[in-house]
């Protein structure tokens, strides 16, 4: 009788180890997915922004068209990033982590990446205060901050990747403005560099966090 119970306990212990490993693997996949998102989005965004800025400056287009160029770049970047993430990155759904997100979550997520860009580029702000060529940087920082408060904060993984990225980007914004004002048209390159650096830091932090799951 005792031996039977011991065998049963042993079997359950093995099952417990397997199930705990499965849970860890899904957490690992979800955090890797976040890291991939930063790398893919960062590289797509940086490459497209640099091309857009170069072409824009080379053509000598007036600043009033910059909003259109920027919006087009963001839409193209989002489309390419989503397609790439869906096809090559490990995917993660909150349901797998025991959290059922409200149906509005996707809408919030989408809006958080649209509204800040529309607002910042529509504001009648003097170019000397916030140059057109770098307005996308604070817009991205605000977008990430909003996305953190509306979406990421609810994640059962308790990650703060978007918050960290938004802080890094918002902190680097004044430096980009100073560079742009000191050397016109160079601030765009600096902004791209700061954005890439921020995403690199957050992506690396996410990878480190994923690695820790199995330590």
């Amino acid at each position, binding site marked *: 009788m005792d031996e039977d119970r011991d065998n049963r306990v042993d079997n359950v212990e093995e099952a417990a180890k397997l199930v*705990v490993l499965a849970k860890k693997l899904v957490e690992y996949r979800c955090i890797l997915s976040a890291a991939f998102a930063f790398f893919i989005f960062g590289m797509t965004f940086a490459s497209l922004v640099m091309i857009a800025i170069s072409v824009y400056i080379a053509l000598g287009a007036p600043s009033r068209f910059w909003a259109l160029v920027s919006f087009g770049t963001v839409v193209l970047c989002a489309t390419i990033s989503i397609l790439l993430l869906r096809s090559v990155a490990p995917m993660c759904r909150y349901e797998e982590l*025991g959290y059922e997100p409200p149906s509005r979550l996707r809408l919030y997520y989408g809006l958080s990446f649209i509204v800040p860009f529309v607002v910042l580029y529509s504001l009648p702000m003097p170019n000397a205060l916030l140059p057109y060529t770098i307005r996308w940087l604070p817009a991205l920082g605000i977008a990430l901050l909003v996305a953190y408060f509306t979406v990421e904060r609810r994640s059962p993984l308790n990650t703060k990747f978007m918050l960290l990225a938004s802080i890094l980007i918002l902190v680097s914004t004044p430096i980009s403005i100073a560079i742009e004002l000191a050397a016109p048209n160079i601030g765009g390159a600096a902004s791209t560099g700061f954005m890439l650096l921020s995403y690199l830091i957050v992506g690396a932090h996410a990878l480190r966090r994923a690695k820790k799951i199995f330590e």
Partner: protein
Amino acid sequence: MAEERAVIEELKRLDRDLLNPKRLSILVILYVSGPKTMAQLVRLTGLSWGDLESNLRKLREKGIIEMSKTITPNGIRTMVKLTPYGVKTFLEMASKLELLLKILRGDR
């Protein structure tokens, strides 16, 4: 003694149907790597087609999985995936087993 009682109580509360090694391996595969075709499950679990079908039937009756015909590059295949209730059940079982594992590790 109290810990042993706690282990026994947790054991009683677990769904034994799901703890069956074959069904558990199917659940773990579907949870970790997402929807799979029947052929993929046969390959990954090492079960025979008949064995897999009978275990999938039991999981389906409990509402843990759902099966649907899907068009794949290799033709029409039966896709097996966890239902939202299946994910919830799996995670509940995982929490209980995790607790049990902690008790057992403290016990030994």
